[in-house]
């Protein structure tokens, strides 16, 4: 069929089953937007910033497991999208970002709104394409979607010169993809899986270390089955919160810099780490030479480059977590779970000794209380996104996540401003679910313009701003490591949050009491409009436990057992 390049882009998006595209038009992508205007195969959401478009597509992808799509124009449109690409890249999120480019004849001439998009995005995409002719456009789009969702997922950029979107040619969307140099390993080596299984049976203090790869592989039920079968304790990374379910008795909690005592001690004392889709990030390992120093390590990961990158691995298994666990589970049929009883008891005692706790107050709202209370009010059904900072860690520590894809946050890149647009994407994916962005007074301002997007499209995302009038996490480090020199972290001057939300078509709440918190959450759900809930929390609250950067996991700063005064 004869059609323009712009039409081909729309046809490819429809052929891939994409229902929603987030984006922002501009000169170089205008022809594609003209086709978007004419078609009804997918919905387009106009964000108010390209970064937010990519984060929204990312949030949609994290919530559904499907490929998210964002569209931006050339030059500044593309450069605004880079933070979104990098965020998705660090957390292996399947995205296709389509960017306009100046016409082929102007490439390299420093034309208006020209930038080397493939050059800039090379380190923060799984792969990228500059389309050089109309003939290669359909195949390139097919490959982009295939690469985004296969193997270790990731963001793919397709940069399309403007003249190619106007040109007319014949369109045939390929059924399959053939990239001879790209053959991800899914199955996992049988012999290695057998050896790893034997190691599990021989270990005395084994520990499951669950990462975001389990979520990406949709392997959580298999992981739960494996844990149930073996009765081996589990720790989760930030990205894996929800995999085990908050009530699972074998779940010790999150590990790492803000992990709890039992989790970090378990990792320090285990004799066998069974790592599933986790990448030994420095926020998890602390001082590498002290990390799991008594343990052999089984590492299952679809990306061979992740294996033995930071720690020596005794049982490397390259493969998809689901495929590997399907092979591993039958091999553990006769496992003696009593063997780990003493180990489970030791860890239980650790948890009793220093549970994940905080000292509550009747005078002021503690952020941890707000998170726990939110869990009680909206619990298992809600999708929680977050920005980056103290509120993110409190949410990860205290919210009762019950399933994967319920918790959406920027782990690898740590992108402030991610939460609100990601929540918009998640809400578009699941309109009937309550979607709440837990944010801070620093983070929310980074993409607050999306209030307008959410109001226009009636996307009722609830933004709970845990407001301590600080860039809280930086302030916490300044407290501990910079003798309380609060350099440029004091955010005493603030907008009128309620008025700001209302000015943009949403609603606002100012919350100063626990009772008011309950009332605001309930009302926000009932009002069903985008909102800013400005919650005044204890200003100098710290995220604890904390392992100082570069320290050993077992050297934790623990929460106080009684109230300590402010400043």
């Amino acid at each position: 069929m004869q059609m323009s390049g712009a039409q081909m882009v729309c046809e490819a998006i429809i052929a891939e089953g994409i229902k929603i595209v987030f984006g922002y038009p501009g000169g170089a992508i205008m022809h594609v937007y003209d086709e978007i205007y004419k078609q009804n195969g997918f919905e387009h959401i106009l964000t108010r910033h390209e970064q937010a478009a990519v984060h929204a597509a990312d949030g949609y992808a994290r919530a559904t497991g499907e490929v998210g799509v964002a569209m931006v124009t050339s030059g500044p449109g593309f450069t605004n999208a880079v933070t979104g690409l990098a965020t998705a890249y660090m957390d292996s999120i399947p995205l296709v970002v389509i960017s306009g480019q100046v016409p082929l004849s102007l490439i390299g001439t420093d034309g208006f709104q020209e930038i080397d998009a493939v050059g800039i995005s090379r380190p923060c995409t799984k792969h990228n394409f500059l389309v050089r002719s109309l003939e290669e456009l359909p195949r390139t789009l097919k490959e982009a979607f295939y690469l985004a969702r296969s193997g270790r997922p990731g963001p793919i950029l397709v940069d399309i010169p403007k003249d190619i979107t106007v040109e007319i040619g014949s369109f045939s969307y390929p059924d399959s993809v053939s990239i001879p140099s790209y053959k991800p390993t899914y199955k996992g080596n049988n012999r290695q899986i057998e050896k790893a299984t034997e190691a599990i049976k021989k270990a005395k203090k084994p520990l499951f270390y669950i990462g975001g790869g389990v979520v990406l592989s949709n392997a959580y039920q298999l992981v739960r089955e494996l844990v149930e079968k073996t009765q081996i304790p589990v720790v989760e990374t930030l990205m894996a919160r929800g995999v085990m379910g908050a009530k699972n008795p074998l779940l010790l909690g999150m590990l790492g810099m803000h992990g709890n005592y039992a989790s970090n001690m378990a990792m320090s004392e285990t004799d066998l780490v069974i790592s599933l889709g986790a990448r030994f990030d420095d926020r998890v390992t602390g001082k590498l030479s002290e990390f799991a120093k008594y343990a052999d390590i089984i590492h299952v990961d679809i990306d061979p480059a992740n294996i033995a990158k930071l720690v020596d691995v005794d049982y490397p298994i390259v493969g998809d977590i689901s495929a590997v666990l399907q092979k591993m589970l039958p091999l553990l049929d006769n496992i003696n779970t009593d063997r780990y009883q003493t180990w489970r008891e030791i860890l239980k005692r650790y948890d009793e000794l220093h549970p994940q706790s905080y000292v509550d107050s009747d005078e002021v709202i503690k952020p941890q209380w707000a998170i726990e209370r939110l869990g009680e009010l909206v619990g298992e059904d809600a999708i929680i996104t977050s920005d980056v900072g103290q509120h993110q860690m409190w949410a990860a520590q205290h919210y009762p996540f019950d399933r994967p894809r319920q918790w959406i946050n920027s782990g690898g890149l740590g992108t402030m401003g991610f939460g609100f647009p990601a929540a918009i994407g998640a809400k578009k994916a699941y309109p009937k679910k309550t979607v709440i962005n837990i944010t801070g007074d620093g983070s929310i301002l980074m993409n607050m313009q999306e209030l307008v997007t959410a109001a226009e499209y009636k996307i009722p995302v609830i933004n709970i701003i845990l407001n301590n009038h600080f860039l809280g996490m930086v302030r916490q480090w300044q407290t501990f490591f910079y003798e309380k020199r609060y350099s440029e972290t004091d955010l005493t001057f603030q907008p009128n949050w309620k008025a700001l939300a209302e000015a943009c078509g949403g609603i606002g709440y100012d919350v100063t009491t626990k009772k008011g918190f309950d009332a605001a959450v309930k009302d926000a759900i009932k009002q069903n409009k985008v909102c800013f809930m400005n919650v005044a929390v204890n200003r100098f609250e710290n995220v604890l436990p904390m392992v100082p950067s570069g320290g050993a996991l077992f050297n934790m700063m623990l929460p106080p057992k009684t109230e300590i005064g402010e400043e």
Partner: protein
Amino acid sequence: MTNNATNEKRVISVIVMNESSVLSRITSMFAARGYNIESLTVAPIPESDMSHMTIETRGNAKVMEQITKQLHKLISVYKVIEHEEMIEKEMVLAKFPIAENLADISVLASAYNGGVVNVGKDMIIVMVADEPKRIKYFIEAAQRYNPCEVVRGGVVAIER
């Protein structure tokens, strides 16, 4: 992670799809992860849509493992060969003033598997192709004939 004591020279061959910007994908990976490229040669493989790159780098076993894995991860990379038993050659072109002892220069070049390739009014040009270590010796020996220009070609290697 890097242990300088075992920071040995290594040569790898990378077979890549012959497409635009593939070279920069490879070099960006080295740059972004802090690995050094000592020399790099690249040319298309005849009658295919692939190119052969020979990269000379340095690192211990762990660094080399990461380099090969990260290269493999690039979508454009078809194959990575870590050479153990290899034939390694490097080419050099050198230009000398015609006033120098041409017979000596010719003998020197032939001792290093090369010869005179051009004689002009003012200059003589020799080419040698030999093992990288011997190329170093050739360049040292050539200094006495006051070369005005020496151009090294980078290593190419093939597994034995």
